[in-house]
């Protein structure tokens, strides 16, 4: 196991929604240049953990560290400026905006710098061309680049959301089931992208239900069951069955 300081560490995270104990003391660490698979059955608490890390929910108890330093991630903006990017399960796309506008939403390229942020002028042309480049590099086909994303297919939308996170990630990228709605080709592209992000030295947390992808990509896997961490191992063909029984809780 990697002994360097993890890029992202979570200690004893607890989160409760009313009567539901979504997280009951989960700890994990993601290191730069590795893909950590976060596994678990439906309702295990994976999305909840992700939302706590990315500042959408606040933890009831526990601590989050970036590069070994405890940080207060109280808002999504704080998470983003700490270098953590997230692709949410519901994508968080704006139906009324174009792909390029979606890309830069919340951190528009703008100037001049001496103005307060809200009053800066948008550099629309620069944003359009950068976004087009990225989309192109990912070989995603979009019907129209200047139309709102409202009517794009599930796969097209997912591709836009993944590309957005890839573009802005500095330290950690979290992907909550990024290939769930994708076809073969787009899935492949997302997986390649994840490998590329890893090569760039980012820490990646990948949530997926697809065992093939886990075995292909993940350097390590953490398994949640009903809000508890029940296992951690290096997934490969040989221990696939063990992993599956951890996930469904048959081992307990």
């Amino acid at each position, binding site marked *: 196991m990697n002994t360097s300081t993890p890029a992202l560490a979570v200690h004893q995270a607890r989160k409760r929604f009313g009567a539901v104990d979504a997280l009951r003391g989960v700890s994990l660490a993601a290191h730069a240049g590795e893909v950590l698979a976060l596994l678990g059955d439906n309702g295990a608490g994976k999305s909840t953990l992700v939302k706590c890390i*990315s500042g*959408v929910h606040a933890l009831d108890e526990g601590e989050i560290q970036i590069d070994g330093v405890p940080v207060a991630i109280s*808002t*999504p*903006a704080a*998470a*983003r*400026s700490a270098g953590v990017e*997230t692709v*949410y399960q519901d*994508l*968080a*796309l*704006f*139906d*009324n*905006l174009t792909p390029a*506008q979606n890309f830069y*939403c*919340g*951190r*528009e390229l*703008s100037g001049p710098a001496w103005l307060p*942020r*809200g*009053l*800066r*002028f*948008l550099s629309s042309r620069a944003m359009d061309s950068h976004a087009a480049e990225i989309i192109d590099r990912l070989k995603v086909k979009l019907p129209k680049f200047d139309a709102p994303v409202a009517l794009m297919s599930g796969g097209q939308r997912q591709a836009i959301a993944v590309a957005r996170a890839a573009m802005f990630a500095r330290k950690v990228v979290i992907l909550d089931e990024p290939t769930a709605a994708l076809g073969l080709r787009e899935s492949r592209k997302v997986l390649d992208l994840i490998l590329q992000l890893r090569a760039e030295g980012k820490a990646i947390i990948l949530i997926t239900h697809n065992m093939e992808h886990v075995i292909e990509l993940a350097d390590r896997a953490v398994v949640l069951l009903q809000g508890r961490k029940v296992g951690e191992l290096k997934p490969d063909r040989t221990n696939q069955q063990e992993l599956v029984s951890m996930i469904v809780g048959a081992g307990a």
Partner: protein
Amino acid sequence: MTAVSLGLRLLSVGPLLILFALIVVISFLTPHFLKPGNISNILAQTAVIAIVAMGQHLVILTRGIDLSVGANLALATVIGALAYRVADSSVVVILAMVVTGGLVGAVNGIVYVFGRLPHPFIITLATLSVCRGLALEFAVGHTTMRGMPDFVSSLGGSWIFGAPNSFFVVFGVAAILLVLTRMMVWGRWTYAVGGKPEAAVQMGIPVRWVLVSAYVISGLCAGIGAVVLAGRTQAGSPLYGNLLELDTIAAVIIGGASFLGGRGHIGHALIGAVMIGVIRNALNLLGVDVFFQMIAIGLVIVIAVEGDVLRNHLEARARTMQAGRA
């Protein structure tokens, strides 16, 4: 250019087309309508609704509603009239009105956002009531206070190049808001918040401040509307702006924006306001009696909106035909 693509181009001009149709019909009905004097009248009569509707539009862009604009405007004119009694200075009086408007807007926004209210309806309804009460309480003699500095009067009541000065105020406000919403970061954020508030939070947009600022701008617009109205009447009155909230919301919606949030632009508010102004003016010119005016306004509004629905439908059809040919 084929017939279809020409038709398409015409159709895409949208509610403007409906307005144009309305103007053609009316100018056949009454010869007074297209007189230059009357056009200036319409512009002057519409100025207040147009200015306030543009602010309302921003609030509607964020999925909200501002019921307080009319009462806010009344309060601002009263404060302006009080300021005039203290200092015969246009700067002071205008500032008093605009700042009052902005403050009321800030109260709306802050209570709504930080009071975690489920919808702005209640707080803006409450400020409607409070502002009317305050305006009546503050107005000397609880009634209209006459007198405005010269420059304010000229804003509301004088003409340059055949257009009323208030027209240029409308123009200026529209230009500023157009820059703000279309060219600045704040505008992008407003559309994002209106389009999907949860996603806006996730993307790190300061959603609360965007919301508060929309209400502040709506309040500022009410304050600017107050300047124009006070200039036009050379007075401040606690009775001004009655039902202005419904007029401005109607203008925004007739103009083609949507309650769903994140859709529409400033032009929609302007066109809607002019449409309402044109209809009222025409009914006055035609000497239609009040009862029938009410009926007619209702019917014309529905016809205008239905016309737009039909237009959208035709537009979609035409696009399909055009694509089929390509």
